[in-house]
């Protein structure tokens, strides 16, 4: 049950997308998402659709992994599409039920909204599938290094370190939760049945031991880090340095071209 939670869903492979600098991937993702929302109609959405499909193909991540991601947010996609179905205010009227009318433009709008969310999810999952969580935090730390001018570089480092640690301990916590749940079930705790209040109460025997062990783990980790002379970000060097390559420049260039395509179609149609 808990095993189904995927976080930091890195998919090991050796595609060009995997090898890009994580900073490039984050910046390009932000750019692509901004332009995805700048599309004005379903026609200009064709450009990011082609772009996304191309990225998916060269990322060498199996299609079923992306489908799985879409499946989890399918209710949101359907909900958004249905709401938008009734917002078409032009075109031929196809159906009128009570107050609601469905027009051809309404259908186009529903498809447009739905596919925009799908593309958004696909693009962001490319980042998480092709970049390890640690690379992502490193990249965030590096991208935020301009905070130096506000004398906040230490805060940025600490934030990145906290994220790294949090990500590292998610599998550990999941395992721990499962163990505690089994132990309390063995003492007759009922987690599946009962009314809402009873179910919430049934969580106490699980959350308290989990909280206590997290605090204990945090103390132990802090001590272990201090034993290795960790004292924050000042003067720290990296084992794995981030480095831009020509591929990053090309990736940025190609994506900017696609974004230009969106602007072009927006103005032409």
């Amino acid at each position: 049950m808990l095993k189904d939670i995927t976080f930091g869903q890195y998919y090991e492979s050796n595609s060009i997308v995997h090898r890009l600098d994580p900073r490039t991937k984050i910046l390009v993702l932000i750019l692509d998402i901004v332009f995805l929302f700048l599309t004005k109609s379903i026609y200009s959405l064709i450009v990011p659709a082609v772009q996304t499909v191309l990225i998916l193909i060269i990322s060498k991540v199996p299609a079923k992994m992306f489908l799985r991601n879409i499946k989890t947010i399918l209710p949101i996609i359907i909900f958004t599409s249905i709401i938008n179905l009734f917002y078409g205010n032009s075109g031929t009227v196809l159906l009128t039920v009570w107050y609601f009318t469905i027009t051809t433009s309404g259908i186009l709008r529903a498809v447009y909204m739905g596919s925009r969310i799908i593309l958004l999810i696909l693009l962001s999952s490319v980042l998480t599938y092709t970049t390890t969580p640690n690379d992502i935090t490193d990249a965030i730390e590096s991208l935020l290094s301009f905070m130096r001018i506000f004398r906040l570089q230490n805060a940025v480092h600490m934030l990145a370190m906290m994220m790294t640690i949090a990500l590292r301990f998610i599998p550990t916590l999941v395992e721990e939760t499962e163990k505690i749940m089994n132990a309390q079930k063995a003492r007759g705790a009922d987690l599946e049945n009962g009314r809402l209040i009873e179910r919430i109460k049934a969580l106490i025997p699980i959350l308290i031991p989990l909280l206590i062990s997290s605090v204990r783990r945090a103390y132990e980790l802090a001590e272990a880090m201090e034993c290795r002379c960790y004292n924050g970000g000042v003067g720290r060097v990296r084992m794995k340095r981030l480095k831009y390559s020509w591929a990053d420049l090309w990736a940025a260039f190609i994506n900017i071209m696609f974004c230009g395509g969106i602007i072009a179609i927006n103005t032409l149609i």
Partner: protein
Amino acid sequence: MASIIEVKNLSYTYDGDAQIVKDAIHDISFSIEKGEIVGIIGHTGSGKSTLIQHLNGLLKPASGEVLLNGKNIWDDPKNIKDIRFKVGLVFQYPEYQLFEETVFADIAFGPKNMGLTGDELKNRVESICDTVGIKREYFDKSPFDLSGGEKRRVAIAGVMAMKPEVLILDEPIAGLDPKGRHEVSAMVKNYREKFGATVIIVSHNMEDMASLADKLIVLSGGKLVMYDTAYNVFSKGDMLSEIGLSVPVVTKVLKLINEKNNDIRTDIFTLKDAVEYLCALSAGGKNA
């Protein structure tokens, strides 16, 4: 005698990716008589924990069945909770499951889930604590203020308070100091004597297994390789070391002596027996 637990052709694989062949179990069958102490030994990942979680219905067999008093425990899935009261399972490091504000409340958690209330609940907790030697002055303390060994005992008492017919303990003495180990072993013994319970212990400690267990189940790679008396199992020392296990230290010592002097017996597995044997031998030697 009637067997209290019977396992027939039990198999289980952790689903999802086929890469998790570790901890799976294949076609395991055995039966345990009422009142016996049975030890389960096996290398890490040999399926010990998976097996014991089937005995109280935390895991559902992929194939095969588990019988408790002759009845399949999954006959009525809604009553699986009752099975867990009859087959008490103490996990590894049970002190990490303590959560209540007082020792009393924590021990009472199990019986409370069984539906006991008021005086009945109080009597139940008190009688268990008397049996296993947890003093009344501990009742109002926070379990988090106790020492490691005390926490462990309180956690085990929390399972014993349900008065299970079968008590399963996963590595009950791992990580304890000698005093704590002694206390935990004593409380298991007392519980068994008082309630006539069947006890199943998973352990890596061959010495304890030799002195405690009537019978041993040896698992390797998810398969049952031996199920026999402790004497017979430890007699096959070579086979045990092949699957990453070993005989008690005292047996190893006797074997080393045996290499120099072939008259020494090597089929002695507990410290007590070895001392008796060696004393008798040296007395005999002097007399001769």
